[in-house]
């Protein structure tokens, strides 16, 4: 499993091995297991942005929440600097790994000032001492996200969506983390505000060497801003590579579908996706999960495809990428 | 099979009644009576059960008659009833009852001495039935009209209880396996009325055609409605739908009398003594007789009576605790002087004399230090007692005694006075054919108990051999003279030592609407207490006549 190995020179700070999360749903007597995330290997490298794209419900948020330890993984390991995260003190862990929640309107407590929101992690993680020190640090944080220091006294509702989003980022930065998990931080905003946020995150990566996980639906923004892109489908990573490789030369049929479906004013013809109809809810749980919707589906797709390197930095989990001779004989062919 | 017997018999009674007058009632020959707001009752007429409907609403003796009726309005007066007469052996251990002849049970069977003997033996056999505490050793029928009861100790004073027991028919009750759980839904007795219908709203009775007193009763139907609260009963009384009631009616003149000046009358003499019971245990503020005397001297009982009951419960007139004027005959030259007149100066001088010093806060200080103070306890939901206490506390404040009025739940009140965990409490006495019964109730050391243990009735915990001796002296003789001396002795103890402090007289609440029936007892003709409580209610109802016109 080498899908997301680090770039040359840099050691990943946060790394997952075979991470999985299964939810059990109870309803009308029968139990159903939702494999929200399966067998995930991910490495976040300082100074890089890793984008996670994929269909709704493919487990992107679950990954982020597992990484910040809000959701307990069903199996697998998370390591921070090689240490098992599960054994680490939660506070110590979160000092290094912070998350920006998807919705800037919901993730700031409306009763507290922005200053309070920023001061709390500073104090909790021992980054500042009570008193003038905190106020100064809060000011610094606000400046880092390009907010005027007077915002410290404002309440969330007095801020625009973009400003809130910045405040949320500032809060995540308060503990001086090395990993920032940003879950769809821009989905609620209009295009010009979106851009401001992305540019800000990009700067943080460049100046602070942050490792950023950027969860999004917006492939164009991933291409614009991320160093690496990971494509998820039904809880599994189907493709990963540099952002440009993945968007410009998608290797997995699902990625191709995704990219062809992305709105693009410069497109020549409108894409027909009607065939790719069924939703992820009914995706098979073994083998290639995309096979029911895949125009190239083969019998062999009933087995889990390996991650195949397209280029050294680009892998896709698809049997199409495996030389025909090397594909295992599928059960039916054998029979 | 016992119950079917009962039903059969009443069916007969019912038929009989249907012949005389319709049970639908409402006519002028129906008397509606209410003793108290009781809430819905169950169809239980077992006379030995203190909660039976007949007992609660005063109709028990309409069915189960006593041997003798006592006039509590005039001490010593009694009326022969099922027993024409009676004699005591001189040692008080044998009671011979001479019964009426020609009495029949309402099912037509003849009444005889064996029914009387059976009744008393029943009480012996089933202690649970013996709720009047009669201690007969044996009961036999000597002949059809003579019954003999024997006791192991002089039982003169128990005659009041013995003669009040309702006599039940042997032919029915002997067939009942466990009479203590027998609800007796269709009672068969010798009395003037038969039960005709019963439901949650009350019951109706109709005249017993076989009744042994010739020409009686004159009223053909009795109706007993049920009320849950005094105000709704009072409303009905004011509206004229109730003829005879035993309610405490506040502002009785406006609420009742004025509504029909011609017919609405009341006569509510005292029959017992409401007292302040001091806790006499060592260390309690009222253990000091001087304090009790001061308290008694400082109280203006007339004001209390006015405030709490508009004077309806008359102020106690004698420190002896005697109910005046009913027990006037027991007043002697020695005890006449103990009339109760408010005298704050006297109260203060008593306290001064006893070594209490007036403190700067206007209250006396106890020798041990601290205000001379006690709390006066009564149930919060006894409004009249609460007023009594509040007024008393104001009056005692003027005398330098600090009284905290403490209104508590009935449950706590009962438990406190029983177990002696109180300073002082307002409490009602008991009735009786002579002052002995109250004195015995208050002062007999046999009914006392050490602190923390439940006392039976001597709640102030008065333990005085002299008093006990006097009580025994009274109980062991039938000689009115000796008895009177004993009473006088106790009365003097009462008046000087104040083991309980008389406050008011417990009035026998009685309201009468004479529109339909007349002949109720009055102050001028106090042949009975006016209230519709059994068994005297039976005597009274038989005296009533349809109003002229």
């Amino acid at each position: 499993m080498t899908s997301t190995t680090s770039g040359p020179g840099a050691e990943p700070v946060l790394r997952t091995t075979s991470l999985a999360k299964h939810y059990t749903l109870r309803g009308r007597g029968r139990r159903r297991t939702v494999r929200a995330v399966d067998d995930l290997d991910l490495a976040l490298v300082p100074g890089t942005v890793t984008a996670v794209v994929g269909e709704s419900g493919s487990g992107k948020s679950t990954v982020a929440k597992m990484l910040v330890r809000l959701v307990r993984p069903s199996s697998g390991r998370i390591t921070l600097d090689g240490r098992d995260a599960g054994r680490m003190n939660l506070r110590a862990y979160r000092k290094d790994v912070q998350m920006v929640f998807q919705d800037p309107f919901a993730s700031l407590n409306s009763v507290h000032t922005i200053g309070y929101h920023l001061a709390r992690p500073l104090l909790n993680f021992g980054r500042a001492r009570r008193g003038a020190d905190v106020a100064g640090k809060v000011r610094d944080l606000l400046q880092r996200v390009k907010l005027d220091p007077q915002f410290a006294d404002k309440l969330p509702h007095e801020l625009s969506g973009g400003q809130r989003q910045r405040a949320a980022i500032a809060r995540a930065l308060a503990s001086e983390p090395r990993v920032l998990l940003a879950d769809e931080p821009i989905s609620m905003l209009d295009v010009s505000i979106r851009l401001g946020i992305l540019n800000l995150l990009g700067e943080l990566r460049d100046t602070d060497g942050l490792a950023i996980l950027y969860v999004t639906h917006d492939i164009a923004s991933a291409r614009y801003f991320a160093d690496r892109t990971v494509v998820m489908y039904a809880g599994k990573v189907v493709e990963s590579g540099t952002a440009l490789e993945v968007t410009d030369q998608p290797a997995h049929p699902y990625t191709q579908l995704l990219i062809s479906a992305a709105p693009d004013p410069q497109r020549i013809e409108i894409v027909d996706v009607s065939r790719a109809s069924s939703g992820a809810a009914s995706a098979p749980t073994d083998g290639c999960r995309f096979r029911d919707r895949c125009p190239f589906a083969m019998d062999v797709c009933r087995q889990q495809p390996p991650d195949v390197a397209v280029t050294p930095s680009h892998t896709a989990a698809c049997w199409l990428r495996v030389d025909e001779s090397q594909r295992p004989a599928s059960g039916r062919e054998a029979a | 099979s016992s119950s079917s017997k009962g039903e059969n018999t009443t069916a007969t009674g019912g038929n009989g009644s249907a012949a005389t007058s319709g049970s639908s009632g409402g006519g002028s020959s129906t008397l509606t009576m209410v003793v108290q707001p009781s809430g819905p009752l169950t169809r239980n007429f077992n006379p030995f059960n203190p909660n039976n409907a007949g007992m609660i609403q005063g109709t028990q003796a309409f069915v189960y008659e006593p041997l003798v009726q006592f006039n509590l309005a005039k001490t010593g007066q009694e009326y022969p009833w099922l027993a024409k007469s009676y004699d005591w052996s001189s040692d008080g251990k044998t009671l011979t009852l001479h019964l009426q002849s020609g009495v029949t049970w309402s099912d037509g069977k003849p009444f005889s001495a064996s029914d009387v003997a059976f009744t008393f033996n029943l009480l012996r056999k089933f202690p649970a039935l013996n709720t009047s505490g009669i201690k007969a050793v044996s009961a036999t029928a000597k002949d059809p009209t003579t019954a003999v009861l024997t006791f192991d100790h002089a039982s003169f004073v128990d005659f009041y209880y013995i003669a009040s027991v309702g006599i039940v028919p042997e032919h029915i009750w002997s067939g009942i396996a466990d009479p203590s759980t027998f609800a007796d839904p269709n009672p068969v007795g010798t009395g003037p009325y038969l039960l005709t219908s019963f439901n949650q709203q009350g019951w109706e009775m109709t005249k017993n055609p076989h009744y042994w007193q010739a020409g009686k009763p004159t009223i053909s139907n009795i109706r007993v409605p049920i009320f849950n609260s005094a105000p709704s009963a009072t409303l009905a009384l004011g509206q004229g739908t109730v003829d005879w009631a035993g309610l405490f009616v506040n502002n009785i003149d406006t609420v009742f009398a004025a509504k029909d000046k011609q017919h609405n009358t009341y006569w509510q003499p005292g029959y017992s003594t409401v007292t302040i019971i001091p806790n006499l245990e060592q260390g309690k503020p009222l253990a000091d007789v001087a304090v009790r005397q001061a308290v008694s001297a400082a109280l203006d009982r007339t004001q209390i009576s006015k405030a709490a009951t508009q004077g309806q419960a008359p102020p106690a007139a004698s420190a002896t605790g005697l109910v005046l004027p009913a027990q006037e005959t027991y007043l002697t030259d020695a005890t006449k002087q103990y009339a109760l007149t408010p005298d704050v100066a006297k109260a203060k001088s008593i306290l001064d004399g006893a070594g209490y010093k007036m403190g700067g806060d206007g209250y006396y200080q106890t020798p041990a230090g601290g205000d001379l103070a006690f709390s006066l306890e009564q149930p919060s939901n006894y409004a009249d007692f609460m007023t009594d206490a509040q007024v008393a506390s104001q009056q005692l404040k003027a005398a330098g005694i600090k009284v905290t009025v403490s209104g508590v739940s009935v449950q706590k009140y009962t438990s406190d006075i029983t177990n002696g965990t109180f300073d002082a409490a307002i409490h009602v006495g008991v009735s009786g054919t002579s002052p002995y019964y109250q004195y015995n109730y208050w002062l007999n050391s046999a009914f006392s108990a050490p602190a923390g243990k439940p006392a039976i009735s001597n709640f102030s915990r008065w333990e005085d051999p002299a008093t006990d001796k006097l009580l025994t002296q009274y109980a062991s003789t039938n000689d009115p003279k000796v008895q009177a001396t004993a009473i006088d002795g106790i009365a003097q103890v009462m008046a000087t030592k104040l083991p309980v402090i008389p406050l008011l007289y417990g009035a026998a609440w009685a309201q009468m609407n004479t529109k339909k029936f007349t002949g109720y007892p009055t102050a001028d003709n106090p042949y009975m207490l006016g209230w519709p409580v059994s068994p005297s209610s039976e005597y009274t109802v038989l005296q009533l006549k349809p109003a002229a016109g």
Partner: protein
Amino acid sequence: MKFLLRRLGFTLITAWAAISINFFLPRLMPGDPVQLMVARLQQQGAVSPNAMQAMQVAFGLDDHTSLIVQYFQYWGQLFRGDLGRSITFYPSSVSEVIGQALPWTLVLVGVSTVISFLLGTVLGAFIGWRRGSWAETILPLSTFLSSVPYFWMGLIVISLFGAKLGWFPLSGGFDQGIDPSWSSDFVSNALYHAVLPAITIVLSSVASWILGMRNMMVTVMDEDYVLVAQAKGLSRLRVLSAYAARNAVLPSIAGFALSISFVVSGSLLVEIVFSYPGIGYSLYQAVNNEDFPLMQGIFLIITFAVLLANLVADVAYVLLDPRTRQDA
């Protein structure tokens, strides 16, 4: 299913806890029933000090088994369906006493609660629907009525419509002269007697239903699906019934189930004031007389009524709101 089982389990534990409390609570009250009874009898005149003993025997209170043993005996009795004998109404059994009182309460308080619920819900739906119209003036008025102490209103109503105007009987559940039966005479008589108490109950409880429904209506009216229903050009009535009120009534239904407990226990003051024969008054008597068996019996009824109502409300909720079927 699992949800229901779990609910059932918790209901059982709650029942156990409540029944145990119901057993011990009365016994924690100061005093004992015989003392109270003697005290009560004494007020009426003759009572011999010797009577205490007899009464102890009569009511089986002379036996001094420990509380814990009694507790287990009580459970034994319960499982046999035996509630024991009432002390106040001795020798009637507790079930008899309850059986005599409960129907009245169920009918009077039950029917008025249902009327109040229906009236309040309909009014609330209307007011919520017609926000800002004159209908809203009902709100402060009904609020005032609901803040009036029950018994106070009852007494005023009695003195006005009963004593002054004579339109309605002053007290009672029916005329004493008519025996309870299903005859039209009796039923109409009983209804006539029920008017004033019912009006009192309805007036003082309707406001909460109006308010609850109105608030839910206003909230639901703001839901997108109501807007969609309106956008769909559905008739006013259809939008109101199938979309707005249908959804808004759900919380009220849960509340209604809970108010069932009030039917049994909350009727006391009404029953006192109107001298209405019912279970509330029986409970009051039981408490006043420390009639443990009767108290326990009535508590048991209340406990079961509340728990059952809760369970029914849950089930009703599940039936009426498909969303709850999924998770919860």
